[in-house]
């Protein structure tokens, strides 16, 4: 229960940062995606269930405030990202930083692709190449950069949670 509450608080704080302070650090209108980092990290650090939990609440927050009247779309995307990252839990070792960066990058790319298909392609915006070059790649690169800084902190939180025996 304590673990879940701490995870919930983390989602809450990341969402707030994403909506407020990140617009001040955005470069050329592109901001990194903190919620993907969080969802993905808890997925591979702790497993599918935990990834889904974090993803579910991340998506729900986005949906309620920015869902344009439809609740459930982002919740679904984030939940699936948490789930699929959880599959790599067995390959995860805390010392190795390559797998986390790889997974978070892929998660962000897939997230962007899904958002493009569901919210842009379906409104017949076909210029996929443009969106890859100007939105998806910059966001992924910036997200990797933030991951390098942010991942250590998440790992520390996770290990201290584990040390105190919160399941």
């Amino acid at each position, binding site marked *: 229960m304590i673990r879940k509450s701490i995870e919930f608080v983390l989602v*809450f704080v990341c*969402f*707030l*940062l*994403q*909506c*407020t*302070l*990140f*617009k*001040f650090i955005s470069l*050329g*209108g*592109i*901001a990194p*995606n903190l*919620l993907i980092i969080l969802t993905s990290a808890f997925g591979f650090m702790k*497993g*599918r*269930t935990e990834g*889904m939990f974090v993803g*579910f609440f991340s998506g729900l*927050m*986005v949906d*309620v*405030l*920015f*869902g*344009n*009247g*439809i*609740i*459930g*779309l982002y*919740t*679904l995307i984030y*939940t*699936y990202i948490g*789930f699929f990252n*959880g599959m790599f839990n067995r390959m995860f070792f805390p010392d190795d930083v390559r797998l986390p960066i790889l997974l978070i990058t892929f998660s962000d790319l897939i997230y962007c692709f899904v*958002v*493009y298909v569901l*919210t*842009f392609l379906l*409104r017949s*915006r076909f*210029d996929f190449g*443009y*969106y890859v070059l*100007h*939105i998806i790649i910059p*966001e992924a690169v910036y997200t990797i950069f933030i991951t390098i800084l942010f991942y250590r902190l998440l790992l520390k939180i996770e290990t201290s949670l584990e040390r105190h025996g919160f399941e």
Partner: protein
Amino acid sequence: MESLKCRSGSVKKRWFTMARVKLKRKKFVLPSRYILAIITFFCIAMMLLTFFTDAVSAPLSGIAAYTVVPFERGFDSIGSKFTARMNDFKNLKEVLDKNEALQNRVNELSQLNSQLTRDRYELEELREFYGLSDQLSDYETVGARVIGKDPGNWFSVFVIDKGSRDGLAVNMNVITGSGLVGIITEVGTNWASVRSIIDDSSNVSAMVLNTEDSVVVNGDLKLIANGDIRFEHLLDEDDKVVKGDQIVTSNISDKFLPGINIGYISSIDKDPNNLTKSGTLTPGVDFKHINTVLVIKELKAGKTD
């Protein structure tokens, strides 16, 4: 091979019994596959429900009003103070130069203003004379602060710190002193989210001010970097509309009040169909630096004229 299979079978069996023993000791945990399936059904049901009704979104936005929004306000004020402090040092010289230029402009404008005031009296008089109602009369507005931005990079939606408590409702127009900003899409008790007109999914029915030809102003993500908006479906057979013409919201729009400035045409081209024209316009509002906005507390649908 046979023995290996047999062996693996027995191992499996042993594992199963172990698992069963373990299950008895530990409390039952639902496998993540099933949780995923449940969440999937839940989300799809919610999507359908929220798409067709408002039953679910009202309580959820109520929760958001008391959890997320107060924090957003706090964070935002920290952020703006920080950037304001940064800019203080950077811009002092720039501001001094600008001040001088603006002072000259003030002189120019005050002269122009007195002239316009005179004209306005005359206009009012003439309107009264002809019995025309003042369509562009001052709407009742309420000021609001921008406290949060859409977390993704795809859309241009932002959250303001006024909501239904202050009399705001969905489809109210949001402006600044220099023109149209967007429209309210969701409202909570103390917050509202606004879709700006540069958003890719935004469509505004507008018209060219001096020829009254109607156009549709579409937001386009590709043009956001240049700060432009696209306009389409301009029927201009006599080529009267030129670069620099002002575009305002049209009388026939069902959501936007008439006569609000949108921007000025920056480029205009003939469409491949040879009938209509389209192009880009430079909005009057600087969408990169919006901190405070005005919400017009009047709905187009409620207007009776």
